[in-house]
Structures are given as structure tokens and as C-alpha cells.
């Protein structure tokens, strides 16, 4: 009986998330049916416009499972976009080279932040807050002006539509095929890879163990510092990659880019059932978190009159809601554990 309750705790959160997504999407389809919300392309657009965010949120899920956090991701994205743009437009780098540099920047952030968090045991929040300011500042040092990308290979990547074998039939009875961009393929692949990593590798499981009880993880012989370090490096790498995907979407680099993205990514993870205290979370849940954020954004853009920072306010409110929910579920499960205590008195006798 008790068990059923508990298992439902985490599953329940994910269920609410999926239900909420479905509800919001269906509501959108009904309200904005005339504006094309019901078309399959609309759903794919959620992935297209949030591919970068999805990849970054996966990275964030990794570090949040260990009980850590990374708020530097937004700045890393800005820096990656700016550096890529600068390299391709002003320094004559090829798109492939720019991609490699972008990944290296992400990894560099991951290595430094990971080292400070795992080996010097400094609070991840402080470390990544510094990382956030550092990244944004470096972006400004490279250029305070916006740089648009005109590199041909890059633009070819950005605009390569991949048509899918379905779509909708237009007024003239013709099938308009739905499409996605390569960024979506990359993002979905990353989700699958991280999901496998978390479920089926020693490294993935050790992240859960660390988040559940770091001291125990050490005692059980896991290399906690190394695992945390790797989580941050991977998170940095994904921020770099996500940044590049972001860049393929915006085709430009500027200082104010992706401001507050860390909030979106954290919200997505939390809404998707990742506990802020660590130890619990899945990338599938995170993906639904991202889709919810995307749906809110498209609802507000489709509506047309509301200003864009309503997206963030709505998302903040949603984050609040889920945090409260987590707090409530957390406190009830603690109470359940208490009743599991056992006696100790009689142990003094017997033994003989």
C-alpha cells in the first residue's frame, strides 16, 4: 500500500507534466484552430524552435540529478553564438571549424566549473553564477555589435529542410509535407543518448547515487568527484552544442542573446520531474518540460497582442507551481519513511 503511494510520487509528477502539456496543446488547437495550431507542423515547430534548449536542458538534467545546478548556460550560448559568428564572418573560419570551437568552449566551461564544484567543493550556484557573468562579459569583449552569419555552409545547414512522409492537405487538395531541420534530429538523438546514458551506464547510475546520498556514494566506492566532474563537462559540452543549434536558428551573435535561457532550461527540468534536491529526474520528463515551455511561447505568439516577456512570467509561475508540488510530495514521503522505524530496546537481551 505504502509502496504504491511512493512510486506514484515521482510518476505522478511526470503524469501531471504530460497531462498539462496535452491539455495546453489541445486548448491551443481549439482556440487557435484558424491560425494553424492544429496542423502537425505546429507540433514539429515546437522541436524546431527549441532544439537548442532541449539539448541544454538535457545537460542541466544531468547536473541537477547530482544535486547541482548550472546557471551559466544562457551565457555560454551567447558566447558560442558570438564566437561562431565572429570566426566565420571576420576570421575566415569554416562552419565545421566554428562548430568544433563552439564545442570546445562548452567543454572548457564544463571543465573549469566541474573542477571547482567537484574537486574544490564550492557551491555550484556561486561557481556557475560567476560563469554566467564571465560568459556574458566575454561575449561583449568580442563584440558589442550584432554579427549576422552569412557563411554558406552554415546557412545551408540552417535551412536544410528534412521532409517527413506526412503533413496536411491544403485547400487545393494537395498534401503539404511536414518538415524538420537537422537541429531537431541532433536534439532528439541527444535526448535518446542521454536517456540511455542515465539508465544503462555505470556513470549514469552513479549520478543518481550521488544525488540520493553523496556520502553513501563515496562509501560504496564510487568515484564521486570524478563522476560529478564528468557530469559538468558533459553539461558544458551540451551547452556548447545547444548553443550552436541555437545559432543555427538565429544565424547571428549578439550580447543579449539567450538571456534567461538558464531559467528556461531549469524550469523545463523541474517541470519534467527533476528534483531540485537531486537524485530523481529523467530526460524524457525534461523533454516534456521543454515542450510545455514551447507551447506557452507559441500560444502567446499566436495570440499576438501579449508581449514576449509574458512567456517568462508564465514559465516562472509554472516553475513555482511545480516547486510547491515537489515540496508537498517530498514532505509526505518523509513522513512515510518515519513510520518505518524499528525498535531497539529488546536487542539488549538475547544474543546468548
Amino acid at each position, binding site marked *: 500500500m505504502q509502496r504504491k503511494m511512493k512510486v506514484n510520487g515521482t510518476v505522478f509528477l511526470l503524469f501531471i507534466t504530460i497531462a498539462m502539456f496535452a491539455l495546453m496543446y489541445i486548448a491551443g488547437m481549439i482556440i487557435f484552430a484558424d491560425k494553424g495550431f492544429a496542423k502537425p507542423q505546429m507540433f514539429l515547430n515546437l522541436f524546431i524552435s527549441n532544439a537548442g534548449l532541449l539539448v541544454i536542458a538535457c545537460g542541466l538534467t544531468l547536473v541537477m540529478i547530482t544535486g547541482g*545546478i548550472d*546557471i551559466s548556460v544562457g551565457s555560454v550560448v551567447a558566447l558560442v553564438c558570438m564566437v561562431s559568428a565572429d570566426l566565420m564572418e571576420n576570421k575566415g573560419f569554416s562552419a565545421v571549424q566554428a562548430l568544433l570551437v563552439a564545442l570546445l568552449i562548452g567543454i572548457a566551461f564544463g571543465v573549469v566549473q566541474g573542477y*571547482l564544484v567537484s*574537486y*574544490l*567543493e*564550492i*557551491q555550484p*550556484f*556561486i*561557481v556557475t*553564477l*560567476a*560563469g*554566467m*557573468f*564571465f560568459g*556574458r*562579459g*566575454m561575449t*561583449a*569583449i568580442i563584440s*558589442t555589435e550584432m554579427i549576422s552569419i552569412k557563411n554558406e555552409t552554415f546557412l545551408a545547414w540552417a535551412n536544410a529542410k528534412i521532409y517527413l512522409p506526412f503533413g496536411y492537405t491544403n485547400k487545393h487538395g494537395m498534401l503539404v509535407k511536414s518538415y524538420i531541420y537537422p537541429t531537431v534530429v541532433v536534439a532528439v538523438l541527444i535526448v535518446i543518448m542521454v536517456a540511455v546514458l542515465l539508465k544503462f551506464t555505470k556513470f549514469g547510475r552513479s549520478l543518481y547515487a550521488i544525488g540520493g546520498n553523496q556520502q553513501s556514494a563515496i562509501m560504496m566506492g564510487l568515484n564521486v568527484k570524478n563522476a560529478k566532474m564528468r557530469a559538468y563537462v558533459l553539461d558544458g559540452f551540451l551547452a556548447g552544442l545547444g548553443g550552436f543549434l541555437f545559432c543555427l536558428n538565429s544565424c547571428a551573435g549578439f*550580447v543579449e542573446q539567450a538571456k*534567461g535561457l*538558464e*531559467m528556461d532550461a*531549469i524550469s523545463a527540468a523541474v517541470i519534467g520531474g527533476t528534483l*531540485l534536491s537531486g537524485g530523481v529526474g529523467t530526460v524524457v520528463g525534461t523533454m516534456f518540460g521543454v515542450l510545455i515551455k514551447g507551447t506557452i511561447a507559441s500560444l502567446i505568439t499566436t495570440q499576438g497582442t501579449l*508581449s514576449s*516577456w*509574458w512567456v*517568462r*512570467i508564465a514559465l*516562472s509561475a509554472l*516553475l*513555482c507551481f511545480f*516547486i*510547491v508540488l515537489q*515540496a508537498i510530495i517530498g514532505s509526505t514521503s518523509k513522513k512515510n519513511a518515519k513510520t518505518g522505524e524499528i525498535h531497539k530496546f529488546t536487542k539488549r537481551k538475547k544474543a546468548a
Partner: protein
Amino acid sequence: MAQQSKTSKWNQIRHAKLFMPIVCLLIVLLLNVIQTPDFFKISMNNGVLYGYLVDIINRGSELVILAVGMTLVTAVSGGQDISVGAVMAVAAAICCQILSGGAVSTNTLAAPIIVAALAGILAAGLCGAFNGFLVAKLNIQPMVATLILFTAGRGIAQLVTKGQITYVRVGSYKVLGGYIGSCPIPTPVFVAILTVIVMQLILKKTALGLYLESVGINGSASRLVGLNSTMLKIIAYIICGLLAGLAGIVASSRIYSADANNIGLNLEMDAILAVALGGNNLGGGKFNLMGSIIGAYTIQALTTSLYAMSVSADQLPVYKAIVVIAIVVLQSPVFQSRISKVTQRKAVGNAA
């Protein structure tokens, strides 16, 4: 023998509470003397004091006010309020909107300044109460809880100012950020000093300081000795919010307008830095208000000198991020124990 007493005295000085912050301040000032020889020159210009030092003390006022609140929050909750910058913007927006009577720009006051300022500060206190509620009632990590207003706060300020910069072009509104009559010392300096005095009085004459430290060190034990740790945390966050509001109004008065995007921008980082520089443990517990204040002036000195070296505002965060990392690394127990091991090994080596 004499040697020993000398070193012990040196150790005593070295371990004195304010040693670190004062040394940091001296280092920054020293660097300035080398860079700009007329750094300490103070002159009278148009009946007001003029010079780098005056500028540091003047411009540092908001930071000092924020640092006071941040110190209390850090002590009681072991985390930082990263929403203070955004809350400053909210207070400024509300104050200016009331003064302008809803218009974008005004030359006459729609309401008494004191009423508008109080309304702004009160709204900021409300933001603090919200943060406090999340932290104390729902047990959310302070930085995650305040992240919500950190991102949503400026959106709210935009909402209030309807996305524009509200100007209050009235002489009396400039007093708070300017000069009182013919007094040669800028008003913000008085505001900062007054804030510090009031806060010191509160801490000396009431048990608030002891309570906050006690709750910060051990919340559950504090509850059992009769302290209301939830209430105390909320109080600390409200104080932090109110002070952020005050700082916001001073900042707004300087530019006689409410710029939702730029008031208090990046100041949360400076405030955290000030607290850390002041020798306070960012993990909470015992605190040292004077240290934080010296820390705040140190940061401002750093900012001013970086400006003097023609570093732009956008790029400033890079250097501050580096300083913050340096401080937390130096503070980190792991780092300290490593260093002491190295020096010990050296000593052993020398002996051999």
C-alpha cells in the same frame, strides 16, 4: 622566543575578523595609486566634492545598502538572494510610475515623493516576502527560489512601465541621488551611512543578529529553543527586499528615471562578492556586517578603477567573475587544507 611571540601576534592579526576585507581594499587602492597617480586627489568643483575616492564612496552607496541585506540573508539561509538587482528595478518602476501618474515622462509630480518612494520600497519588500516564503516555507534552495524573480522581476518592471523608460524631470526627485542644497557631499553617501547605522543599532539592541546566526547554523535546534526559524528567514528576506527597494530608488533618482532593463543590472553579483570579500561564509551562520560593507567599497573601488582603465560596462562582469572565483577558491576548506599540506611538506623538506 621573541620570534615566536611576534609570529603569534601576526597570526592574531591575520585571523582577526576584518583582516581579509581590509587587505583586499588596500590592494585595490594600491593598484589604483600605481595606475592613476592623482587617485587620492579630492577637489571642490562647482561647490561639490570631486575625485576618484568621492566617486567610489558615492557610487558604492547602493552596493553597501544591498550588501547589508545580502549579509543577513546569507547568514540565516546559507544562500544568496540573486533577485536584488531585478527588485531594484521593480521598486524604481513603481516609484516613477506613481510620480509620473502613469505617463512616460513628466515635469510635475503626480504624487508626493515620499509616498511614491515608500510604495516602491514596499513593493520591493513584498518581493522579499515572496522569496522568503519560498525559502522558509517551502524549503527551496535560496538561489533557485530567487532565480524566479531574478528572471521575472525585470519583466514585471517592464509591465509596470509599459515597456518604456519613465522619466521624472523634477528637481526635488534628483535630491536623493544628487545633493541636498549646497552640501558638497552626495546624498547617497548619507543614505548608505544611515542604513548601516540603523542596521547596526537593530543588531546591537535586539537579539536579531544572534537569532539569525543561530537559525543559519542549526535550524531545527533553533526551533526547539523557541526560535521561529521560518519567520526569521522571512524577516531577513523582507529586510533584503526593502533595502533593495531603497537602493533602487536611489539609483533611479540618480538618473531621474526608471529604466527597467538597466537599474541594478549585475549588482546582485557585486553584492554577493561584497559579502564574500567581507569574510562571511557563503554557507551561512556567523556573519560580519562591517566586513560586508568594506567588501562593498572594495568592489566599487574595483569597478571604478576598471572604468578608469577604460573597460566598458558590458565587459566588467568578466573581471568580477574572476575575482569571485578567486575569493571562493581561497575560502574553500578543501583548497586551504591542500595549501597547508603543501607548506607543511615544504617545512618538512627544509627540516630534512
